[in-house]
Each structure stands twice: as C-alpha cells, then as structure tokens.
C-alpha cells in the first residue's frame, strides 16, 4: 500500500514538474505547446520555418493574382489584396516591416 502511495506521489510530482517546465518554455518562447514535451523540438523547428514559408506562399498568391512580382504591384492592387485578405496583408506588412 505504501509503495502505491509513493508511486502516485512521485508520479504527481513528476507531472507537476513537467507541467511547470512546459508552461515556463511556453511563456518564454510564446509558442503554442501541447501537453507533452516530445512536441517541443518539432514546434521550435516548425516555428523557425513557418514565417519563411508563409511569406513565400503569400507572395506566390500575389504573383498568381496580379501576374507580377509582389514588389511591382501598385498601391491600388495592394489595397485590393488587403481588402480581400486582411490578416495576410497585415502579417506581411509586419513581417517585411513595410
């Protein structure tokens, strides 16, 4: 019986430790982690690459929409894009520091 209590207590301490560590990392990096530390490595790697992939994908879309490179689009075309896809436009402005 005492062995069972000990196991449960150590398990609880371990769980709390893991939880604290996870939330600590989450608050420091601002990354959205799921329960379980196995995901940390994948999340860090994905977050590192996701910005670049987003810029690439958004610029591909702009190119396909207006038939020219994003740097050559006019202000009117940019406003048209912004009206249709406000989050992407806002995010691009932030990411590219326009």
């Amino acid at each position, binding site marked *: 019986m005492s062995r069972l209590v000990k196991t449960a207590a150590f398990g609880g301490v371990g769980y709390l430790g893991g939880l604290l560590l996870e939330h600590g990392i989450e608050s420091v990096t601002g990354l*959205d982690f*799921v329960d379980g530390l196995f995901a940390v490595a994948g999340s860090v790697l994905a*977050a590192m690459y996701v910005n670049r992939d*987003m810029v690439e*994908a958004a610029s*591909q879309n702009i190119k396909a929409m207006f038939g020219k490179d994003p740097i050559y689009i006019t202000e009117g075309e940019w406003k048209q894009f912004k009206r249709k*896809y406000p989050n992407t436009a806002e995010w691009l402005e932030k990411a590219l520091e326009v």
Partner: protein
Amino acid sequence: MELLALDGFLLKALVGLLAKLGVDELKKSGWMPQSYYVRTALLALKRDDLDQAVRDYNLSVEKREPGEKAKVAYEIITCAIDIRIAKTEDKLSELHRALHPPVFSVRFWRNLLAGNRSAANERLRREEQGCREALEVLGRLKSQLKSASEDKQH
C-alpha cells in the same frame, strides 16, 4: 551475453517503434502544436496539393482556437483556392465560347460546314466536363476549409 545484447537491441527498437507510432497517432489526431500543422499545410500548398493543405489546416484548428499564423494560413489557402477557381472558370468560358460560338461568327459557320469537327468538339466537351468537376472539387475544398475555421471562431 549475446542474447542479452540482442534483448537490449530489440527493446530499443520496440521503444523506438512505439514512440513513432505514438507520435504518428498524435499527428493524425491534431495534438501536435498549431505551427507544425500550419507549416505542413504551407508545404502541401507549395507542392500544389490543395487537398492535403486543407486537411492539415483543419487539423491545426481541430483542438485549438486559430492563432495569428493559422488565420494567415487560412487566408493563404483560401486565396490559392480562389485563384484556382478563377483560372478554371476562365478556361471553362473559353471552352464554352469554342463549343457554342455566336451565329454571326466565322467559327460558327466553320463548325457547321466542316465535316470532321465532331472529334474536336468531343474533346472540348470532355475538357469542359473536367473543368466542371474540378470546380466542384474546389468548391467542396473551400467549404471544408471554411467550416473548420468557422467552427472554432464562433
């Protein structure tokens, strides 16, 4: 001694296999971080695999509210689908014009007078049908994407 070493190896292999199966299962059920799914969706988009991109985006919002990046990814995928729809519609109207030219056009009379146009028209009709089916699939993909996003936002 050799038996023990083999046991150790088998144990490690088993643990590795179980870990892989566990992670695969978590990936499939949407428990990985949102940024992971957003990235895989964008990579699928890069490969021109809209189906997979929509599936991955839907997984990214399956267990969590869409964050800033997920919202941007949603718009990027929607934009890619819209572009594909516009291109397919252009192609469809081009095919329609070729198949049903106005009476006062040269094409109409050429179609009417030339005897061997039926094979070409048949090919155009098949192409037209293909475009209609593609539009249906794209519309379905767009509604799937929308529903996943709206479910979480409302």
